[in-house]
């Protein structure tokens, strides 16, 4: 016999599914969950300084490790901060499991003026794949499995669970047999196998791509980063076909010569780059997202479309077949794998695209162009195992332009169009998930300020594998009263800061900065 409670059952179910990190600020109603996490050898709570960044850290962790994780916020008060951060998981296809306590089950729905309470499940419903309430302690493992399956399968995304406090605290006296029954071995919640395309459609696509002299691949969300991103990336590199990546799938073919044709962001903004795009005679679209769809729309304006081969795991995203448009239902990795042998492009084409894109990126980097030497100085210290997070449109373009030939483990372009300033918490999540990698956050100052507080969190967590580079940092002008000095602010929060004279730019880190 063992005395347990709902919170502990929930946590055990999470651990059994391999969840290791919980990004969260505590609330009293989370008492039993926190205690169970504290006693679990494989689990850990990472505490940010706002629930908004808890969710963003979870995004960074998941995106960089491929592992699901939890963002947890307290009833009402915490949850309302979390929403803005969790939206990123929705927009960026990341399997974040959001969990929140609720007030007592017998008075939670509908809302009854309980302290801190509101209809949380409704708050989350518009931007999660699954938003449910756990009304029964012994059914929580089942609900966790279901939630994780929803989060990970097909195109990943966030899910949300509300659990009333009386369920979380409810005493559960379990015999050994009951316990075993409750926690069956992990269900296979991570079906990430192939969804093979219809051979007929694949064959047609093969023929078209085979005839193309100037093909382009446009990766939108791909299949969602954490699932088969790497596999798709290596197929693309093998094909040696120029690949334009939307921000959501950034880095999928990073620094691959003659393949990495830069971010969609560049094509969106630069008419010269767009001209090259319009030259293409066949575009392979792999898992479209808002950005790639917009780019396609822009390309097709006023001209006859080239051939478009469009692969999606979600058939709803496909259009009806038409002249020049070949929809293929199947997961992008499998679809592209079946097309691999077809690629037969003109000789100099790939290089031409890549070069044009790099030039356009450099011109879009704006003020950051002045800090080119900073990027040049940074590049040699970036190892194959390291990660780059760019925050803000200019930072993304500069990263593509100046670090585009520096190979590394992963690159995350947070272009700030939908979520502002996610970079710092996102990079912290990545640093927590990849203790053996160094994380370079290249952030515009405006972006950095959104979640500036988390600089203190990086210090508290002792994240020595994080370097913050702010190429447009505002520094105090000598003698100008009241002008904010970002270097001083970060130093005040306990970071080691250095001014890079040639920017001037700011480099900050926990402990001793990596040599730049």
């Amino acid at each position: 016999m063992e005395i347990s409670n709902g919170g502990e059952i929930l946590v055990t179910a999470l651990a059994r599914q391999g969840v290791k990190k919980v990004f969260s600020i505590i609330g009293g109603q989370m008492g039993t969950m926190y205690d169970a996490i504290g006693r679990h050898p494989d689990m850990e709570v990472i505490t940010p300084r706002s629930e908004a960044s808890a969710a963003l850290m979870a995004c960074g962790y998941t995106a960089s490790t491929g592992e699901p994780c939890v963002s947890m916020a307290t009833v009402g008060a915490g949850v309302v901060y979390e929403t803005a951060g969790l939206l990123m998981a929705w927009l960026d296809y990341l399997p974040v499991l959001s969990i929140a306590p609720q007030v007592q089950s017998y008075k939670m729905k509908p809302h009854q003026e309980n302290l801190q309470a509101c209809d949380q499940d409704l708050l989350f419903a518009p931007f999660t794949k699954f938003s449910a309430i756990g009304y029964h302690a012994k059914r929580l493992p089942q609900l966790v499995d279901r939630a994780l399956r929803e989060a990970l399968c097909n195109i990943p995304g966030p899910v949300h669970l509300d659990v009333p406090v009386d369920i979380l605290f409810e005493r559960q006296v379990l015999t050994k047999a009951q316990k075993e029954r409750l926690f069956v071995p992990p269900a296979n919640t991570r079906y990430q196998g192939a969804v093979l395309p219809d051979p007929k459609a694949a064959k047609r696509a093969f023929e078209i791509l085979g005839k193309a002299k100037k093909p382009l691949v446009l990766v939108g969300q791909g299949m969602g980063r954490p699932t088969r991103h790497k596999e798709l990336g290596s197929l693309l590199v093998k094909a040696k076909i120029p690949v334009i990546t939307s921000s959501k799938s950034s880095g999928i073919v990073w620094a691959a010569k003659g393949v990495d044709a830069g971010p969609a962001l560049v094509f969106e903004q630069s008419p010269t780059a767009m001209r090259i795009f319009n030259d293409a005679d066949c575009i392979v679209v792999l898992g479209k997202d808002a950005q790639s769809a917009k780019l396609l729309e822009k390309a097709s304006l006023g001209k006859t479309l080239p051939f478009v081969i469009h692969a999606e795991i979600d058939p709803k995203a496909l259009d009806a077949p038409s002249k020049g448009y070949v929809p293929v239902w199947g997961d992008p990795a499998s679809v592209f794998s079946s097309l691999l042998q077809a690629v037969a492009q003109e000789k100099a084409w790939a290089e031409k695209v890549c070069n044009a894109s790099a030039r356009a990126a450099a011109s879009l980097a704006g003020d950051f162009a002045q800090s080119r030497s900073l990027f040049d100085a940074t590049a040699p210290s970036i190892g194959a195992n390291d990660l780059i997070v760019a925050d803000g449109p200019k930072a993304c373009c500069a990263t593509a332009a100046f670090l585009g030939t520096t190979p590394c483990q992963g690159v995350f372009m947070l272009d700030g169009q939908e979520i502002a300033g996610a970079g710092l918490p996102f990079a912290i999540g990545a640093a927590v998930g990849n203790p053996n990698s160094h994380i370079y956050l290249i952030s515009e100052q405006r972006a950095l300020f959104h979640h500036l507080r988390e600089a203190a969190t990086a210090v508290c967590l002792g994240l020595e594998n994080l370097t913050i580079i702010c190429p447009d940092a505002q520094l105090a002008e000598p003698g100008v009263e009241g002008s904010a000095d970002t270097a001083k602010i970060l130093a005040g929060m306990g970071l080691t800061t250095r001014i890079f004279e040639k920017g001037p730019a700011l480099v900050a880190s926990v402990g001793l900065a990596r040599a730049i």
Partner: protein
Amino acid sequence: MARINGSQVLAQSIKALGIGRIFTVRAPGLDELVEVLEQESGAQVFFAHDEVAATLMADGFARRSRKAAAVLTGAWGRALAQVAGVTNAWADRVPLIAISLCPDVGPDNNRGWNRADFDQGAVFAPVVSWRGRVSLPEQIPKALAKAVMASRAGRMGPAHLDICPGALKASADEKVLAFLLPPADPDAVIEPARIPADSTSLNQAIALIKNAKKPLIFAGGGVKASAASQALIALAGDFGIPVATSMSGIGAIPSDSPFCIGAPSYTAGETFHAAIREADVVLAVGAAFSGLEGFGLPPIWGAYIAFIHVDNDPLVFGVNVSPQVCVFGDVRTVLEQLYQAFSKSGFSAPAAWKAWHEYLMRLKKGRKKRLDDFAKKNWAKPHQGRLALAVGRFMIEQDAIMVIDGGNTPLYAASYAPGLAPDQAFFPFGMAALGGGVPYAVGVALAARGRRVMLVTGDGSFLYAVQELETIRRLNLPVTIFVNNDSAWNMIKAMQDSFFECRYVGTCIPETDYAKIAKGFGIPAMRVTKAAQMDKALEFAAGQSGPVLVDCVTDCKNLPDSLLSFTLVEFEGSLTQLDPKKVLKSLWMNRSMGLARSRHMADYVRKAILGINPRQKRGL
């Protein structure tokens, strides 16, 4: 006919509706609109660094000034960042106007392949009085007018308007402005409709009160929303009825007034518990009887109380308590009507009322002495109560307005606060959400131009919007910040002490020097580690004309005693579910808190929770 674009339509609508302050964040896609608003709307525009903070600033401004304020942000994450502030406004009934851009394509495609096209407005649905969406410039004037009206109806609350970027760029015939009324005064205070009570319910209420032996007025946030403090003080004072306030009613009557039973809600300890357990007739004014108030039901409240419920929203009647008499009307107007009726009939308090009042005042005095003595003991680190007392003194000397943030910190601040005016203390009581402090301080300082604003904040809460210290510095606002630096999310850590065998998970905050952080922002600051330095720190703070911070290092072993009441009410039976062996072990492990602290807590349990008070002296 001249044509104007949507941004200009919005600017004219804002002007017509008298929305005088707009809080926003510079963002791509928004900058052009903001420029138009700055030039054409007549509103003052303030810039924050993050949308969460901008919303809270607008909320803070609206709370203190009772004038119209709006927050304006971009779409997606920038829009959802409003949710925290909007929810605070919703729970505390603040008529905040929240405007954001939204995905242009329309929510009809929601849950289709394009996740960017999600139903943004639906997220707000559970926490607003009204929400709407416009996609054409022609729709803007009507929608904004509706938002403003809905936000002020009845008990008030926030309204959210989504604007498609296309609607701002598109042009419309100037005629669309004909819908608008002439510009309203942006500095006009939002007055609730002064609806009087009908004579039947009023007479029933009067009869019930006159027959009472132990009457009590229970004042909620509605008293402040209706600017009814003077009327409340007059009624209570002239006819001898004791007043208790809910948490959101803080300051509705100064806690040191002779008819106020003390600090708000449970922070008044045994006085509050005795008052709501023993009263026989309760005149509840502008109070919702939410969960925190134990829904007005036993065991927190007496089982045989006859309630008279006064409110300007008939929907709250009978929802929780079932009142003997419901009085629909504006709180201030009804209180004035009651006053007139009592004075016309030449009423004066009967002897029983006086004895009841004296009894409560005795409890109040006893509690105050106990708290003060305890705080002033010779503790190694300054006691939080000591900090709160010092802060209270500072408040009086500087005629400052207090903004509170944190878990235990607000309980200390409320327990020890001197007599507050109705517009002198701010905290989002309904959501009890952390992190509002710094932005509220900005909003309140802008609303109370010239007055000093004092932020008393927990260390955990302080960093939520720390980036806005730059805003405080940039605007050179007279904000004094006191950080109760106990290196803990202490309200919750207390729970791990008491029930989870002192296993601290996610409740300890590594030692942080908040003075150093403030200095990084160019704000003068000082760190206090000993009680003896407190006077010097106050002197230092008083010497600054702009922003200043005092980081006061306190001991996380201290707890505000009233936390016990809050915990019991919030958790109801759930705590009894915990493994009793572990709870006992926790108690045993807690002996390190020392005899003095244990005795202090035991006193609270005896007097407040169990209600064991010197009855023989009551003379009842």
